[in-house]
């Protein structure tokens, strides 16, 4: 349930077609767990971290939106 001043139609606009543009989903195993990312234009963008170690959520390289570099692991 949304509680926002933004117009719900604008917030959810494109939800039906968004999946087509999202690129290929991937999962990368890292030391602390897994990263869920999306491959777009040859780059992997971090979508979320799946880990039981809360400290890793303060690490910017695992932050949503960060570009994942292979040498990060």
């Amino acid at each position: 349930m949304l509680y926002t001043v933004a117009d719900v139609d604008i917030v959810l606009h494109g939800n039906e077609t968004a999946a087509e543009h999202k690129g290929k989903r991937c999962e990368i195993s890292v030391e602390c767990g897994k990263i869920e990312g999306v491959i777009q234009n040859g780059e992997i963008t971090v979508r979320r971290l799946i880990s039981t170690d809360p400290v890793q959520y303060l690490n910017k390289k695992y932050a949503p939106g960060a570009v994942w570099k292979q040498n990060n692991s």
Partner: protein
Amino acid sequence: MEENRSTNGQDREAEQIIESGSVTKSSGRHCIHCLTVIGQIEGHYILPEHNKTTKYEHVIPQLVAIEEDPEIEGLLILLNTVGGDVEAGLAIAEMVAGMSKPTVSMVLGGGHSIGVPLAVSANTSFIAPTATMTVHPIRMNGLVLGVPQTFSYFNRMQERITSFVCENSKISAERFRELMTKTGDLVTDVGTVLGGEDAVREGIIDRLGTLSDSMKELCGLIDEKKKTAADDGKLAPKEEL
């Protein structure tokens, strides 16, 4: 700047900047973490990509890490949000309210809808004079059944927000409900837009202020907590050998 920065703190900051560009700040008097809550609070559903979002599944473990980290002494929350998912917002707000470390929130630009409980969840809340907060009823998208139970459900959801805000600020539940259902303030909606001064006058936010005021308050709370801990240490009975 104080000269009492710990070597550990400096090493940690350097490491964070090199490794992660983290926003934990330790070059000042205290090591604080700055959490920015922006755009939509994303909840159980991933929002389309044109939205800027704060993801609760990332923020919640961050709050656990901040609470657990012995070097982080306080939390500064900067809010500029249009609201978002009720349960994600309340979850973050409850986490902040339950922290043992000093917390200060600062509303900049806007702290609307579910941003209100987030703003009041800190120990002390500030709002910039130009910032606004919109208090309005909950809405629902998708199929809505026109039956009394729907309104009862809406009421219960709104009550969750009202009770949290009233428990963590000085506004009464009656007044908050009144602001929530006021007509004549918004063009195509019911509710109230509160400017910085209005939010303070209504008792939702503690003070009008700037970033430096927030930092000063947070440092003061940290110093107070350290002093209390030191006093408790002195008063605690010594263990018998």
